[in-house]
């Protein structure tokens, strides 16, 4: 055994003579897997999956004519082509093609503001109450249902 090895072993022996008692552990609970802790682990991926499906469905859009649910849907649209303050209260703004009325007329100022079921009443469109809508505004049958 070389001199260096002997010194290393001697130094290690001296080091072992040090009193190195471990300090007491603080009262921290060990991370354990309890049934309650598994619930969020399942819920979060499920929510992510559902959110992803919803986004995909929204991106693809749906054809109203083939969807029995959509037949009952009413879109509140503003059919006036003239500049109206309605645009300012549309919320949230929706990207995509504007919804036309049943006659198929182009509606440049028309934007869907909310899709309702047949049983719902229009209470508010943005910050504008229905009673304050311009005269040109009227409910029409939806021709292109878009989720938003």
């Amino acid at each position, binding site marked *: 055994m070389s001199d260096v090895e002997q010194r*290393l072993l001697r130094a290690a022996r001296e080091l072992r003579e040090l009193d190195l*008692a471990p300090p007491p552990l603080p009262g921290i609970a060990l*991370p354990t897997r309890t049934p309650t802790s598994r619930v969020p682990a399942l819920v979060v991926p499920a929510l992510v999956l559902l959110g992803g499906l919803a986004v995909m469905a929204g991106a693809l859009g749906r054809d109203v004519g083939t969807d029995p649910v959509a037949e009952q849907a009413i879109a509140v649209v503003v059919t006036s082509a003239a500049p109206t303050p309605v645009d300012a209260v549309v919320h949230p703004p929706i990207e995509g093609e504007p919804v036309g009325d049943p006659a198929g007329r182009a509606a440049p100022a028309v934007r869907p503001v909310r899709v309702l079921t047949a049983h719902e009443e229009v209470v508010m469109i943005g910050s504008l109450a229905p009673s304050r809508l311009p005269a040109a505004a009227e409910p029409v049958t939806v021709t292109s249902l878009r989720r938003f």
Partner: protein
Amino acid sequence: MGVPRDGWLVRVLHMGFFALPRERAVGLSIGEFDGFYEAHYASVVRLAYSLCGSVQIAEELAQEAFVAAHGRWAHLHGFDRPDLWVRRVVINRSISFRRREATERRALEQLHDRDGAAGPDEPPVGDAELWAALRELSPRQAEALALFYVEDQPLSEVAKILGLGEETVKTHLKRGRAALAAKLATSRVQR
């Protein structure tokens, strides 16, 4: 009864950074952290001391390593030797401390014009010259020597902790001993 399949975390840990032993066992239950901590605390502090040169710092580094193990105990308790993981962590932290300390020392030397640089304020343990020379070696050589001689770990365990092959560890040990002998001889001549 078959060997349980490794989870993804275990497989990732085996990829090289921690180089944990492949064998898994159910030797420790999740509630046995206290016993594990008490059994290995002193030896982990000694390992840290040999690499950082201060008992106070060594105790802090060891406690940090055990806190890290505590946070991962749900995974670590299934390993055959969770202490190897703790030793790997304390080695990494000791080397990081040495680098930080060297930077601080250089900055202090510039500030105080070399003579006024603050030195260690705690007495060395045992052969101060040897420990100082050990810490001047390359990190790999110092780690191998500390694990093999101070920790008294067999060559195979040193290789597992360092994530190296046994032959590579032998080479580090051989070169480390030679470099250590040269440094000790130089300091003897200077005295």
